[in-house]
């Protein structure tokens, strides 16, 4: 019944400051695949940063003549290799990110 008491504000008119874009995260065999819906965003106005446990997306765009600022911090479900992260922005503003899983880091140990 939680929803009964919760105030739901729909519509971007109610949003103050940065808009949190919709996103989808999927665990794949060797890492994590993420897509983010960024209407109106071009490569030039997009910033992407990665650490071992999160990816930060910041972008700006003009949508319907109004400026929009996007910001989203996505926590990774597994540790990733930030140096191996690849991203591609489609023409219609959907960002695809592939983040490879961090190598297990096992190394051979000589036994004396």
């Amino acid at each position, binding site marked *: 019944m939680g929803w009964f008491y919760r105030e739901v504000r*729909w519509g971007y008119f109610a949003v103050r400051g940065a808009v949190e874009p919709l996103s989808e995260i999927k665990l794949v065999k060797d890492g994590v695949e993420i897509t983010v819906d960024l209407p109106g965003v071009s490569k030039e106005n997009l910033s992407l940063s990665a650490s071992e446990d999160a990816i930060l997306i910041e972008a700006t765009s003009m949508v319907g003549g109004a400026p929009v600022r996007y910001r989203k911090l996505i926590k990774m479900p597994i540790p990733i290799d930030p140096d191996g992260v690849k991203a591609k922005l489609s023409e219609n503003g959907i960002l695809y990110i592939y983040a490879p899983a961090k190598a297990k880091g096992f190394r051979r140990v000589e036994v004396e």
Partner: protein
Amino acid sequence: MGDTIDVEIVETAVEVKNPLLILAVPGAGLVGVIAADHLIKSMGLKEIGKIDSPTFPPVIAIRDGVAKDTIKIYGGTNLYVVKADIPLPVTALAQLTTAVLDWIAKKRPKLVMVIGGIPEEDRLKITNPTVMKVYNSDEAKAAGEKIKGEFMKDGFLSGYAAFFLKEASRRGIPAVALIVQSFAVYPDPGAAAEALRAIEPLLGVELDISKLEEESETIRLKLKELMSQTVKAMPKEELSATPMYIG
């Protein structure tokens, strides 16, 4: 399921005989809702009624400080569009659907239609999503012969579209489900545009679909919150990339 006693339908216009009805509820990619919105605007359909029930979520839309209904009936020449602007839990959705079908059955509809999206994992790579159609009878197939798209030939269909077709069949109403490949969790105006292209010949009007494509970014941003609420309300299997149709 299917108890319509608590669902109230208020119709304020002169009723139409043998109409076409299009039902649009939030689902994958909000395909039905986006298509219905564009249809209402481009055909100049008038708001002629509302649907409500104490069992529906207590959510109202607010425009300029005034509460508005969230499930509305729009009408034009021989056409009704029923559009829900809120996601409904499964039971409420079933109640809404059966109530609408009971209401439209009295008008002896030519055809009733539901438009929806089917999550497609590779949607990002697809420029023109495929429109698939499934009818509930040969009579429906004849009534909707002008609808473009691929037939779902053999196999199984589950989920809301299957429920809609079954309930229409139980009432002897010719029905079609129009299902378009779409994003699961992002509003998909591109998929809605394909659905509209498919029904344009049936409606016999030009729907200025290029305008929908031009406003795609605005629509996606405007519907972001509805999409987010829809994802929370929908059963996980309806949003998964696993096809509902097994052929």
